[in-house]
């Protein structure tokens, strides 16, 4: 779902087949896509993971071509910007075949969509292309006592139906074989100018498909009766847990327990990893190694200091990302990926809907918000699954303003957690309050309405270990690669500002704000400058200063609300336009400076009186 995974669409080379992958939300399209193309796209066990199309190359027995993954859609009448992408694609792109992924555990609803795709050929003759069906999650269906007569279903749909378990690579080769065969036959028929009757024999007789919703549901009902048998089985412990987690009791205590465990893993585990392994390794082995090497070639002076001085690129440029940030990013992605793939997040959304509605948005938005605790970019892109623009802007603003990313969390723990856990808790409580208040205010200010919850809850599943490991690895690697270059640049800039004395001059200019209003030392100006590059860089320079508790908290408060980093600002502008992007950017900065200053002034006054 992250921006780098969206690719500019390039037409196929001559002779290649271009296949379009479609289906309802949360049927496993992205897993099928990743397995067939090797292109890694985000997938999870809830609807709305894919919010844009992605194209990748497939190869099979000497044949090759393009495969296009589009967001899941319940019907061909789009209800969100993400669904619109899929609908536009099926209407406007020339493809050689459509692969429709069906969820074997929810055949009824999936067949309705399949019929819409079939019906397309009756209203748009230029869309007469073969359709191939992947009957995915057939293993889960079997465990639930559902058996499907695949041959009969294939006859009813007049198209190949291939049972698959995409996460385990089951049936995918057969799927490709069927798609290539269908596209080959279709192409031959076209090239030899076979009459329409022959074309229909491959793609289905256009007239046999019902064209109203009522008729479609009747067709689906008859088909289900013919092809599906459900044997009553006692629910498994996962099914019982899945049902229990949707009830207020034990759902709410369970949600609190899950969140506490998640927090314990990220904060506790991160601190342990940092102090037991990473800090000793970085500060005891890696940094001294670089200092020794640099000392051989460079004499002490500005260049030496820029490389290995107080803010040396080879000192802080390694310590900050690898020892202070990496453990939290890594552990956060373990927790997030597990919750995503298990299907727990939508359940959490159901639990918190009552509270979130008071803040003007529905509970399903807990998904992009939790993603925002990793990075704001996928969270903002994830809002494309929302059904109204108002809701999208509200969630994007809330995330940008008051949800600290995992890198910033690492920085907060390093600054506050090592002195007082209460200060750390305090920052997060203020963050939650700010999210809530922002929602309440924006709900009144932004015209229009935000749609109430209508959310399908996926099956609760034990995540596939291989998929999970791969996902965590890719996400952590991506984050560190994305973070390392700007962080090195930021540290380099910090070193130059300090070594050339420029920081003193800038500090003097901003002194009324930084010293007078925020009560921070002049050097804290560095955090305000670097925070533009990356959010955690607004906090990390404070580690090098001798601050009291009030100053630490003030600095953290400013950093929490401070302007989005450059990458986030870019995404905001791309998604909502320059005006909205600028309003969010300026608004968050002003909020940071005003709230930080108010806190400092109030805290100083109270401490003086006491």
């Amino acid at each position, binding site marked *: 779902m992250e921006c780098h995974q969206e690719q500019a669409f390039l037409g196929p080379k001559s002779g290649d087949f271009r296949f379009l992958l479609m289906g309802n939300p949360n049927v496993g399209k992205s897993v099928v896509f990743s397995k067939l193309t090797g292109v890694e796209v985000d997938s999870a066990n809830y609807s709305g993971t894919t919010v844009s199309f992605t194209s990748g190359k497939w190869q099979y027995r000497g044949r090759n071509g393009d495969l296009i993954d589009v967001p899941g859609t319940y019907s061909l009448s789009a209800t969100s910007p993400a669904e619109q992408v899929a609908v536009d694609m099926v209407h406007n792109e020339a493809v050689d075949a459509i692969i429709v992924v069906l969820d074997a555990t*929810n055949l*009824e*609803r999936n067949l309705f969509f399949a019929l819409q795709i079939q019906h397309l050929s009756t209203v748009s003759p230029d869309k007469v292309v073969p359709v191939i069906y992947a009957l995915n999650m057939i293993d889960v269906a079997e465990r639930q006592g559902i058996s499907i007569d695949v041959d009969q279903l294939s006859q009813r749909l007049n198209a190949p139906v291939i049972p698959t378990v995409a996460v385990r690579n089951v049936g995918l080769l057969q799927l490709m074989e069927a798609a290539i065969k269908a596209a080959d036959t279709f192409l031959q028929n076209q090239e030899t100018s076979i009459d329409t009757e022959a074309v229909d024999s491959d793609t289905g007789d256009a007239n046999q498909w019902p064209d109203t919703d009522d008729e479609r*549901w009747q067709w689906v009902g008859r088909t289900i009766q013919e092809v599906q048998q459900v044997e009553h089985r006692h629910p498994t412990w996962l099914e019982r847990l899945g049902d229990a987690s949707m*009830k207020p009791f034990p759902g709410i205590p369970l949600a609190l327990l899950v969140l506490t465990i998640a927090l314990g893993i990220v904060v506790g585990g991160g601190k342990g990893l940092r102090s037991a392994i990473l800090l000793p390794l970085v500060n005891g082995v890696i940094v001294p190694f670089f200092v020794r090497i640099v000392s051989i070639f460079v004499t002490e002076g500005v260049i030496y200091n820029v490389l290995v001085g107080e803010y040396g690129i080879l000192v802080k440029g390694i310590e900050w990302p690898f020892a202070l940030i990496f453990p939290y990013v890594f552990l956060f992605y373990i927790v997030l990926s597990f919750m995503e793939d298990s299907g727990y997040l939508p359940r959490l959304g*159901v639990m918190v*809907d009552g509270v979130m509605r008071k803040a003007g948005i529905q509970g399903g938005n807990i998904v992009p918000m939790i993603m925002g605790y990793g990075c704001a970019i996928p969270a903002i892109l994830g809002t494309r699954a929302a059904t109204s623009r108002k809701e999208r802007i509200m969630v994007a603003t809330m995330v940008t303003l008051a949800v600290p990313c995992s890198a910033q969390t690492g920085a907060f723990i390093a600054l506050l957690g090592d002195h007082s856990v209460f200060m750390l808790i305090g920052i997060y409580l203020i963050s939650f309050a700010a999210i809530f208040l922002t929602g309440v205010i924006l709900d009144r200010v932004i015209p229009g309405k935000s749609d109430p919850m*209508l959310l*399908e809850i996926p099956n609760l599943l034990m995540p596939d270990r291989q998929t999970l490991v791969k996902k965590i690895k890719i996400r952590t690697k991506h984050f560190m690669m994305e973070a390392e270059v700007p962080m090195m640049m930021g540290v380099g800039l910090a070193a130059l500002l300090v070594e050339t004395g420029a920081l003193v001059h800038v500090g003097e200019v901003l002194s009324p704000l930084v010293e007078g209003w925020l009560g921070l030392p002049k050097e804290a100006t560095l955090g305000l400058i670097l925070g533009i590059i990356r959010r955690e860089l607004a906090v990390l320079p404070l580690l090098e200063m001798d601050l009291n508790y009030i100053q630490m908290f003030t600095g953290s408060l400013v950093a929490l609300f401070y302007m989005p980093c450059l990458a986030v600002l870019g995404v905001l502008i791309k998604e909502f336009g320059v005006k909205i992007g600028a309003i969010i950017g300026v608004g968050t900065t002003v909020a940071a400076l005003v709230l930080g200053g108010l806190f400092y002034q109030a805290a100083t006054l109270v401490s003086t009186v006491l």
Partner: protein
Amino acid sequence: MSLYKMKIKGRCIIETLPSIPLMDAMGFRMGLPMEIQSRQPMGGPVVVRLGNRCVAIAREFAEQIMVREVA
């Protein structure tokens, strides 16, 4: 009665429902049987089971869906 007022574990059939594109697309239609799974506090959603799947429906929508209780 409205879906929101149905008792937990109660079974019902939809008699009338509002015209909401996403609801149509998700397969809600007249005559569809459902079972109430849970109702969340603080005006939260109702969770219903439709065949083999569960859907959370906001109170605002659930109050507009009229149902007939069945045994």
